[in-house]
C-alpha cells in the first residue's frame, strides 16, 4: 500500500472511477479494431485530463510527479493502448514545459486543455536507439524555418493537433546541431502515413510523418538552436517513468484478473496448491518492487534531485515486470488464459519494452551511471556515438 495524502487518495479514486466507467468496458473492442477512441477525449475534457502536467498559471492542474504516477497507473490498469494515447499527449508537453517561453506554452497547452491531443516526434528510420542519426533538417529562412525529412513510430501522430518535432539545424555538429520545434497539424507539407498494425497497444495510434518543406515561424523554435538533444533527453527522462507507471498498472491488472480466473476455476477453494501460490506471490513481489522504484523516482523529481538513472530503472523494471507477470498469467491460466484478455495484456507489455527507448538502451543509461561516479548527466547515446 502507498501512504497517500487525502488529496492524492481522492485523485486516485477519481482516476479509478474514470477508468472503470470509460476505459475497461471498451478496451477489448478497441484493441480488436485498432480504431481511435475519440469518445475518451470528450469524457476527458471536463476533468482536464491532460491538465495534470500543466502549471496552474496556464489553466492546468499541476499535479505533483507522484500524483501523476498514481493517475498513470490507473490508466495502465484499464488499457495500455488507450492509456498510451492519453499519456503520450501529456508527455508531448514536457519539452515545452522544459524549454518553452510563455507564448509557446500558451500555444501548446490551450488546445490540450480543450481535449486536443499532442505528439512528440523524435525517432526516424535511421535514428532509433541512435538519436543522433537523424536526417530531418530545419533550414533557417527570412520568415522562420523550413523542415524537411520524415519521422517514424510517432505515437498519436495521426490524431494530434500539436507536435514537438526535432530536426537538424546544423548537421555538421551532429547531436549538437539538433533543434526542437512546435509544429501544428495542417501546416502545408506535413503529411501523415498509414497507421502501423501493431502486436499490442493496438488502439494507440502509431504513424509515419512526412515533412516536405514545412514552413513554420521562427517563434516555434523551442529554446535555442542546438538545444534539441538536451531537450529530447530531458523530456525522455520525464517520459520514461510514465511508461513504467502504465506498466505497473498493467501488471497489477494481470495479477487481479489471474486471481479472478482462478477463483472461477476453483470455486470454494480459496487457496490453490503451493506451486501456484508461490507464482502469485512472485508476481506480487515484482509488481510492488516496480511500483516502489517508480514512486521513489517521482519523489526524487519532486525534491529536485537528479533522477535520470532512476527514470531509466523505473521504465525498464516496470515494463520487464509487466512482461514477466503477463506472460506468467497467460501460461498459468492455460487454454483459458490464451483466449482471454490476459493475452492482450501480454501483447501490450511486449510493445512497452520497446517504445520510449528500448530496455537495452535504458540499460546503457543505467550502466553508464553505475560506472561513472560522480554521476554525469550526458546521455548514453553520446557515448556510443563516439
Amino acid at each position, binding site marked *: 500500500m502507498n501512504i497517500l495524502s487525502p488529496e492524492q487518495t481522492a485523485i486516485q479514486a477519481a482516476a479509478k472511477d474514470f477508468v472503470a466507467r470509460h476505459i475497461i468496458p471498451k478496451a477489448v473492442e478497441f484493441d480488436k479494431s485498432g480504431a481511435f477512441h475519440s469518445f475518451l477525449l470528450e469524457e476527458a475534457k471536463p476533468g482536464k485530463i491532460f491538465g495534470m502536467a500543466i502549471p496552474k498559471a496556464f489553466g492546468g492542474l499541476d499535479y505533483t510527479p507522484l500524483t501523476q504516477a498514481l493517475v498513470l497507473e490507473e490508466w495502465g490498469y484499464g488499457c495500455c493502448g488507450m492509456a498510451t494515447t492519453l499519456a503520450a499527449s501529456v508527455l508531448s508537453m514536457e519539452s515545452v514545459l522544459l524549454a518553452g517561453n510563455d507564448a509557446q506554452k500558451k500555444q501548446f497547452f490551450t488546445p490540450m486543455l480543450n481535449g486536443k491531443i499532442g505528439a512528440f516526434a523524435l525517432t526516424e528510420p535511421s535514428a532509433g536507439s541512435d538519436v543522433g542519426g537523424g536526417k530531418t533538417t530545419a533550414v533557417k529562412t527570412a520568415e522562420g524555418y523550413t523542415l524537411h525529412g520524415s519521422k517514424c513510430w510517432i505515437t498519436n501522430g495521426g490524431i494530434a493537433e500539436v507536435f514537438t518535432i526535432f530536426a537538424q539545424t546544423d548537421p555538421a555538429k551532429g547531436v549538437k546541431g539538433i533543434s526542437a520545434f512546435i509544429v501544428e497539424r495542417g501546416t502545408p507539407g506535413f503529411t501523415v502515413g498509414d497507421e502501423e498494425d501493431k*502486436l499490442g497497444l493496438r488502439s494507440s495510434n502509431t504513424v509515419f510523418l512526412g515533412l516536405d518543406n514545412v514552413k513554420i515561424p521562427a517563434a516555434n523554435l523551442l529554446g535555442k538552436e542546438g538545444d534539441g538533444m538536451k531537450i529530447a533527453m530531458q523530456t525522455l527522462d520525464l517520459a520514461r517513468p510514465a511508461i513504467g507507471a502504465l506498466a505497473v498498472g498493467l501488471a497489477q491488472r494481470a495479477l487481479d484478473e489471474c486471481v479472478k480466473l482462478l477463483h472461477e476455476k476453483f470455486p470454494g477453494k480459496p487457496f490453490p496448491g503451493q506451486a501456484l501460490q508461490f507464482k502469485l506471490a512472485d508476481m506480487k513481489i515484482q509488481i510492488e518492487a516496480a511500483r516502489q522504484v517508480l514512486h521513489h523516482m517521482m519523489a526524487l523529481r519532486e525534491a529536485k534531485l537528479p533522477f535520470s538513472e532512476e527514470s531509466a530503472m523505473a521504465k525498464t523494471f516496470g515494463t520487464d515486470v509487466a512482461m514477466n507477470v503477463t506472460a506468467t498469467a497467460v501460461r498459468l491460466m492455460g487454454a483459458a488464459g490464451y483466449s482471454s484478455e490476459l493475452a492482450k495484456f501480454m501483447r501490450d507489455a511486449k510493445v512497452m519494452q520497446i517504445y520510449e527507448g528500448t530496455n537495452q538502451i535504458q540499460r546503457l543509461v543505467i550502466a553508464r551511471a553505475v560506472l561513472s561516479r560522480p554521476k554525469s548527466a550526458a546521455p548514453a547515446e553520446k557515448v556510443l556515438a563516439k
Partner: protein
Amino acid sequence: MSSHLTDEQQRIVKSADAFADEFLEPIAADLDRNGKYPKAVIAELAKHDLLGLVVTKSAGGTGAGFTAHVEALQRLSQTCPAVGSIINNHTAASYAISKWGSEAQKTAHLSALAKGQALGAICVYESGAALGLGADALLGTQAGTNIKLNGKKAFVRNAGVADTYLVFATLPADDGKTAISAFIVDAKTTGLSVGVAAQTMGLRGCPVAEVTFENVVLDSAARLGAAKDGAAILSETLSVYALGEAAQTVGIGKAAAKHAAAAAKHRIQFGHPIYSLQAIQTLLAEIASDAHLAWLGIRHAAQLIEDGAPFETEAAIVKSFLGRFGAKLLVDAIQVEGGLGICETAPPHFGGALPLARLFRDLAGTTLLETPADFPEALIAASL
C-alpha cells in the same frame, strides 16, 4: 544433429523442410490473419508422409518414429506453428490408438489417420479444476453393455474439423470412486456437437472450441485399452502432446534467432550493424542456447519413446524448462528488431516480411500449462 539421424529420419526432415518452404511459407501470414482452418494442406501433409510418422508401416503409417515426428514438427513450426498444432493434436490421438488400440481399432482408424483421410483430435480439458469436476464435466454411465456420455470438453483443438476424437471421460469405478476412461469417438456420432471456435491470441488456423456430448451412446468397442488403463493413457498422451508442443516451441525459437540475427546484421545504428554490439550478441546467443538445450531434452525423450522406455519424467523436464525459458525466446528476439519487431505487417517504408509478432503470439500458446493446478514439476519431484 543431422549426423545422428537415420536415413529414414533424414528423408522425413527433408520432406518437412520442403513442405514448409513450398506450402507453409506462402500461407502462414494469411492463415494467422483470417484464422481459417487450412483444409487443403492436410492432403499435402499426407503426401509428404507427415501425418503417420508414429504409426507403424504394417498399420498404414510410415513407421519413421517419434524422433522423426518431433524433427518434422520443429521444422514446420519455424514457418507456421499453427499447422504444427494441427499435426500435434492429430498425432497425439494416433499415438494413443497405436499403443493401446485393439487390432480391430487399429485397422479401423490408423491407416485413415496416417493417410490424411481422417484427422485426429484429443478431448482432454474441462472447465473445472480437474477432470470430472465442475458443472460441465464429461461423465459416462453404463447403459447395458453400452456407455452413455454427457457433458462438455473445453479448448479442444482440431474441433469441428477432426473426424476421430480421442475422448477422456469420468466413469464410476468398482471401488465406488471414479476413474478416467478413454474412448474413440467418430465426429459424426449422434449427440456430439462442436461449439463456435474461440478467438485465440495465436496458433490461429488450428481451430479450438468446446465439444458437447449429449446422450452420446458408445458400444464397448469404442473404449481404448482396459478400464484400468484410462489414467495411464491420459498421462502418456499428454506427455506425448507436451513433447510435440516443446518441439514447436524450439522451432519458433530457432526461427526467432534466425530472423533477429538477420535484422541485426542489416540494422545500422551508431555507425555499425547492431549485430556488432555485445549486448545484441549475448541476447541472440542466449536464445540459441536455450532453444538448443530444450531440443536435446526433446530428442532424448523421443529416443526413450522409440526404445519403449519410460519417458514421462523427461517430457516433464522439457516442459518445466520451456515454462521458465520459452517465452523469453521471443520476448528477447523482438527487442533486437525494436519497432519493426512489434509490427504485424511491414510498414511500406521498411518493407519485408515480419513474422516475429506472429511467432510471439504462437509461442504463448505452445508453452501453456494444461490446467492451473497441473505442474510438470510434480511429476519430476515424484521421480526423485
